[in-house]
């Protein structure tokens, strides 16, 4: 086994911890409950949407109560920064996700990947949710600090199935199912880790014809945008009122601080759609409207 193989193994092993560790940061216990401030506001649910209320921990984390394979409820931290869903060994065993006899690794008693058949929160049931089973040290430390059991973390593999709305003020989340492909980090990333260190290349194709060219920004981190180098006569850009020398700061609500930014923003504007464009001209901010035409 050469050094590369060893390192790849180290990296593959670290993955669930870095990712799984997610961006869960323990924080500290506040003197008073953080969300005492304001009365709950009503959230209007769309049809088919499920409203789930959550509890705010003293550490500023959201906790939802979930039934896993009809067992529980379990207290799960809802974490938009977590790319995976994670269960403690105890919760995984109690819900039958893993058998008590499943071997554990010595590190964090990890049992690796498993699948939850049903995960119920409020009136919502998610089926076949991939989970990682391990006793996460941060979760354990937080549980000890708060004097209660925390059974896991609900992350991307759960919430990416829904249009998710989080309202801290009313302490509710709304989940509305959407058709989308949910990526599985634990499946995709090891392949990439083992693959060559070659950058992916992508050409950014604008959605329509604008008729302008742009240059790179000057001023580093202070730059507000990129200079318009040229505007072709009678082009959609010219008709909108764009001029060479304008500093282009926003296309269609997206910042343009690099040439690539401008192309990426233009790629989202279809032919004929009116796109707001913000420029700085003589120190003043102007909002213009460009309708790209068909062509390239």
């Amino acid at each position: 086994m050469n050094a590369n193989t060893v390192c790849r193994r180290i990296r593959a092993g670290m993955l669930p911890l870095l990712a799984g560790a997610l961006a869960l940061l323990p924080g500290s216990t506040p003197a008073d409950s953080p969300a005492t401030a304001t009365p709950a506001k009503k959230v209007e649910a769309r049809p088919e949407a499920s409203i789930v209320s959550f509890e705010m921990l003293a550490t500023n984390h959201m906790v939802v109560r979930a039934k896993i394979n009809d067992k529980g409820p379990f207290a799960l931290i809802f974490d938009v920064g977590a790319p995976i869903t994670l269960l403690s060994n105890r919760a995984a065993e109690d819900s039958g996700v893993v058998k008590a006899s499943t071997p554990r690794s010595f590190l964090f008693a990890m049992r690796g990947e498993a699948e939850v058949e049903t995960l119920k929160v409020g009136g919502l049931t998610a089926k076949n949710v991939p989970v990682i089973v391990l006793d996460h040290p941060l979760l354990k430390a937080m549980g000890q600090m708060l004097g209660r059991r925390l059974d896991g973390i609900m992350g991307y593999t759960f919430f990416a199935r829904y249009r998710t709305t989080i309202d801290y003020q009313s302490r509710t989340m709304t989940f509305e199912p959407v058709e989308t492909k949910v990526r599985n980090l634990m499946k995709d990333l090891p392949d990439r880790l083992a693959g060559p260190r070659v950058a992916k290349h992508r050409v950014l194709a604008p959605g329509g014809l604008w008729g302008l060219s742009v240059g790179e920004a000057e001023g580093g981190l202070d730059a507000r945008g990129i200079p318009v180098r040229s505007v072709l006569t009678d082009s959609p850009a010219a008709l909108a009122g764009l001029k060479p020398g304008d500093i282009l700061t926003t296309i269609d609500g997206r910042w343009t601080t690099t040439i690539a930014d401008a192309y990426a923003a233009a790629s989202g504007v279809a032919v004929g759609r009116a796109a707001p464009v913000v420029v700085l001209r003589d120190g003043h901010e102007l909002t213009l409207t460009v309708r790209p035409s068909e062509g390239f």
Partner: protein
Amino acid sequence: MNRRLWRLGLVLVLAALAPAPEVARDPTIGKSYQVPYRLTDTNHFLVRVRVNGKGPFNFLVDTGAPALYISTDTAKKIGLEPAKNSFWTPVDRLEFEGGARLEHIKARVEDPFQLIGMNALGLPGASIDGILGFTILARFRLELDPTRDRMTWTRLDYEPKEPPVPDRAEGDGPPAEMGAMNLLGPLAKFAARVVGKQPEEQLHPRGFFGLELSEEGGEIRVSRVLADSPAAKAGVRSGDRLLRLHNRDLASLKGAREIVAEVKPGDRVPLVLGRGAEKLDLTLTTGEGF
């Protein structure tokens, strides 16, 4: 040990009891913003933020973090001096892509091990410069729709307080398991040095032609050639029919767009045009722009 680690200092409890200064109501309350995001290769949601007018930087949207974290590197770049006598460093303003902004915010200048590890390996495919946690996110109603390329943030009439400072007394080390986690950062850095970092995706602008096109009866017609454009220089005229592009027959405008999607500025692109009864072979050198 854990209790001691996060125990509140008496001074902080007293500080929390002090009356809060009058804060003017934020005029953006009730407003909604469309916030573009990027989903990284590691399934993290990044949004772009300017800190004190400088940037933009990539911040992780993380309800699992209690506050706003700015990496030490980012703080250095923008000249934000970490507060010496306080856990929090004041930030004058945060501007979010999409238009939302917040003023007079407190940030923690720190490098959580998760960020060090992921950035060292280049796993996310983009650098992560900081973390937007509870104290930022709770000011908005957040709508995250994986089928759209933007989140919707609606400013709530709610000002969350910073969590109190963890009290780290002298000799009070973190629990052993936390210590092990903290080793992940350096370990990832080491692994990255040996095997190499996953490089960031390279983005290229598409090449520019200057052709305005229309489709009628299965034919692609040049409805206009923009003046001084690469197409004009190559000799394309309005009224020409576009028959072949890059040595491929054209069946539809959609097909033409697909062929062109991979063309870079400066590429030489062979074209076959129909002009009246004539067939013309031209070579167009694409330019910069769109």
